[in-house]
């Protein structure tokens, strides 16, 4: 989805069914073939053409998997069109397969009658063997149900870059630009932005820039020529009518980074980011390290624990401390989060969720850290939890996380996932002037008077929100000690007494439960009725489209998408009780469903998928339909099987 403004225009009456105005293209090749780069640049040119879009980058966990193997296939899928796009698309219309392995693991996904483009130069005996093909599929008739365009992209590329005197290996590296050139021709995209980008990328090596440009142009020219005699044709997609303004494409990792910077700026605080390399969270560190002019300090720590501890230390000293990781790293940070809860210091923890437990599926997406976020610490350790629903939404959610952390003196967990972190979408660039500054307050003088009328410092004296004052070391006269041992009310002295622990536990709980969370809105449909589909996080896109389609078929179904996972919106329970049935699709085994049941005693039903693949619209549509087929016995409680059509390809992962 593009922006809020686009969502408004994407109302039910105006949105088309079956979507002939949308195309799904999947680029697939060896992990060394540069498919992510090709996809990224194609995304940009698509955005520039005014189509709405969503992408799904998928790459193997291995950095350089052996060439030509099934598990070394890297793919990038983009869904774009002339109406609102919410997901990376179900089945591709076009597959570009750079080698036999890429064909093998992706072919099953392509729509019957779809176009398959293959590089015959890579269909050698050896590569066919690596892909476990007994015979060459381009020649044995097994591709009859698709339009196949097979030609020697490798040779054409080598020919095109000949004038630049590159070695054979370097010349072949330009294959992805040749392919991109062809794709640009197919969808009528201008080449100039890519030319400019290549010249900037290879600033120091003009011959490489020009060779890549020559390959790109050759691919484009090939399209024009081949059109005359074959399955290749041009697609024309009208731009989406969208709200006026300045747009860019943005990934979730970029949006989180920008949101953190914006949040710190609005609070008037330096931002301190402590991180440790982990997939897929590292991108946030990489973005922030380039933004030091915004009073950002980044620290690559020796481990996940040190990363969060340094961030807490920085918050103690008056910066906004932030740390980020994925599930295994978040687990390591647990004890330190408890200290931030006990010492009541601001902290933002970003969890880019991936498949678990343990190392799990490092490069695949999942939503299975919800229990960890809400409950996963020792002791009664309440912490606000927010979830972003899309790359662009992550910007606003990051600002909200910063606000809650500082105004309530508490750590806050921000959940994204591998899909949100890596996927790109168009973003209507907001005007920072539209955001209200919320300057942080530091205590400058003693905040109480003792029995003798002398000034007294009470580091744990709470304000109306239940928050204690933020006191920076270096402030004269306010020396005090904090730590992880239970604190006495007001004074913060060590206090193990039973009554005090009860009071302080209650105070920490009530502070978090009292966080000002906006009322829950209904994204689509009525505020009551037959069925509510309740989601959180990156399932927004497929749920939204599935509910849209179901409603068009006359089903009384609403979409509710929750940003504030903890504390939840005050009206959510009442809202859910207004529906006969509640269905909760999640990429886990039903964690949010359990929390909803616990909090509101509603009969929430799970719909789960833990294959490392996002939901497809069709899967959700089918699940919704079971509530309207007059058979009660098949509704709810379903588990969705791994999907052959989807990325990551089942065959690539488990050849």
């Amino acid at each position, binding site marked *: 989805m593009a922006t809020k403004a686009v969502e408004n225009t994407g109302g039910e009456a105006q949105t088309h069914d079956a979507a002939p105005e949308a195309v799904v293209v999947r680029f697939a090749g060896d992990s060394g073939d540069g498919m992510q780069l090709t996809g990224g640049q194609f995304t940009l040119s698509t955005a520039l053409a005014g189509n709405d879009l969503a992408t799904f980058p998928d790459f193997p966990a291995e950095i350089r998997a052996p060439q030509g193997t099934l598990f070394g296939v890297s793919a990038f899928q983009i869904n774009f069109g002339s109406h609102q796009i919410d997901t990376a698309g179900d089945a591709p219309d076009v597959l570009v397969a750079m080698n036999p392995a890429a064909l093998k693991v992706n072919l099953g996904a392509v729509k019957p009658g779809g176009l398959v483009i293959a590089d015959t130069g890579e269909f050698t005996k050896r590569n066919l063997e690596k892909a476990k093909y007994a015979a060459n599929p381009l020649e044995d008739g097994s591709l009859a149900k698709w339009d196949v365009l097979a030609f020697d992209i490798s040779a054409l590329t080598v020919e095109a870059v000949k004038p630049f005197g590159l070695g054979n290996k370097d010349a072949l590296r330009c294959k992805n630009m040749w392919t991109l050139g062809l794709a640009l021709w197919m969808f009528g995209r201008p080449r100039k932005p890519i030319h400019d980008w290549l010249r900037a990328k290879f600033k120091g090596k003009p011959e490489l820039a020009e060779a890549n440009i020559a390959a790109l142009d050759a691919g484009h020219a090939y399209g024009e020529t081949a059109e005359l005699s074959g399955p290749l044709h041009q697609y024309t997609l009208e731009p989406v009518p969208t709200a006026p303004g300045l747009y860019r494409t943005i990934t979730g990792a970029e949006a989180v980074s920008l949101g953190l910077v914006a949040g710190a700026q609005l609070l008037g605080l330096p931002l301190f980011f402590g991180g440790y390399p982990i997939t897929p969270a590292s991108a946030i560190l990489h973005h922030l390290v380039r933004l030091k002019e915004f009073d950002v300090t980044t620290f690559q720590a020796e481990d996940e624990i040190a990363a969060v501890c340094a*961030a807490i230390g920085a918050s103690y000293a008056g910066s906004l401390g932030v740390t980020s990781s994925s599930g295994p790293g978040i687990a390591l940070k647990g004890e330190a989060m408890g200290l931030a809860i006990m010492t009541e210091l601001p902290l933002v923890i970003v969890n880019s969720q991936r498949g678990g437990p343990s190392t799990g599926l490092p490069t695949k997406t999942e939503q299975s850290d919800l229990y960890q976020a809400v409950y996963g610490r020792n002791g009664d350790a309440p912490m606000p939890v927010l979830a972003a629903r899309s790359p662009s939404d992550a910007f606003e959610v990051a600002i909200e996380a910063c606000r809650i952390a500082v105004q309530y003196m508490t750590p806050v967990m921000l959940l994204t996932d591998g899909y949100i972190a890596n996927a790109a979408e168009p973003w209507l660039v907001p005007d920072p002037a539209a955001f209200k500054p919320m300057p942080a307050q530091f205590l400058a003088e003693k905040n109480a008077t003792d029995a003798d009328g002398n000034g007294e410092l009470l580091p744990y004296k709470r304000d109306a929100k239940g928050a204690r004052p933020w006191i920076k070391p270096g402030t004269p006269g306010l020396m005090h000690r904090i730590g992880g041992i239970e604190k006495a009310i007001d004074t913060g002295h060590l206090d193990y007494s039973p009554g005090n622990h009860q009071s302080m536990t209650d105070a920490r709980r009530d502070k978090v439960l009292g966080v000002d969370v906006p009322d829950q809105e209904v994204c689509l449909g009525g505020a009551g009725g037959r069925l509510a589909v309740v989601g959180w996080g990156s399932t927004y896109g497929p749920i939204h489209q599935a509910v849209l389609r179901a409603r068009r078929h006359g089903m009384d179904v609403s979409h509710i998408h929750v940003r504030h996972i903890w504390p939840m919106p005050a009206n959510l329970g009442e809202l859910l009780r207004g529906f006969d049935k509640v269905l909760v699709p999640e990429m886990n085994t039903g964690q949010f469903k359990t929390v909803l049941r616990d909090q509101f005693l509603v009969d929430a039903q799970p719909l789960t998928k833990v294959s490392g693949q996002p939901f497809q619209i069709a899967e959700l549509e089918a699940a919704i339909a079971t509530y309207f087929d007059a058979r009660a016995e098949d509704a709810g409680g379903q588990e969705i099987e791994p999907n052959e059509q989807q990325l990551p390809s089942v065959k690539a992962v488990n050849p």
Partner: protein
Amino acid sequence: MNDMTPITTLKDWETDQEVRWCPGCGDYAILKAVQRTLPTLGSDPANTVFVSGIGCSSRFPYYIESYGFHTIHGRAPAFATGIKLANPDLDIWLVTGDGDGLSIGGNHLMHVLRRNVNMQIMLFNNEIYGLTKGQYSPTSREGTKSPSTPLGSVDHPARPCAFALGAGARFVARGFDVSKNLPDVLTAAHAHKGAAFVEIFQNCVVYNKDVFDDFAKPKGAEDRQLWLENGVPMLFAGGTRGIALDRATLRLDVVDVVDGDWQAAGVIVHDVTNRAVAHMLVEMPFGPFPMALGVLYDDPRPTFEEGVIADRARSVAGKEPNLAKLLGSGQTWTVDEREGHPA
């Protein structure tokens, strides 16, 4: 960082909290030594932060009237690093122990020393886990009997100063709880710009009583303690014995000094910047040799926070913190007012 003019007295560094270590614990003496030293450094309580981990030693911040952060087990160096990066003007004292600093927190101790974050690190070494009631620790001598090693421990102890030097520390010193020289050692640590590591032998009277008596007890101390001083020959036992370097084997030897002629005996002069000799001093086994005390090594180099500040200056040069510009950066396009289409 501070000038040396006292602006405080010992009393100014005492808190209203009742000190809760066991009676006779070496920590009391260390606390007094620190409180006695701070005024002489010209330190300002408002600008001083004591950071600790978990263990008996880590209760220290509660008893010093400054800013204090009692954190979690082993992680104090990481908190202190964050504090220093957020505000490099703060004067940080880190308090840890043999379990906190070398067992659960060994990794963080290594990295704070390697990075050379400017702070004083006091490792109270009592060779035992006190707060958890007496289990053997990573510095316990082989054969230490404890609740977790009833027949005596079998693993080889870590040597804190050797660890620190190996991790890249640029200041390594040793003292012990009741030593009158401890304030001097702490003063030198404070004067060193960078991570200054001080191992302080501390008597745990409950679980490992008097384990350092063989060198720390006053009687015969002269024969068993080698107090190092920069530019001064390594002499002990009233100047009758000294440390020499056997140039053939590259090993240290104890030699007798006759009539004060230490040069004839081949006694070497302590050079605090000699890293090779420092490695030998921290490994010098007590028994055949005296216990090396005082400043073993002191050779500053640029600190981590200086590097971070310089890196920031380089990366922000010529850049304006313009949020609107940042949000609208990258490849952008504009959608036209009337058309609703890209311009």
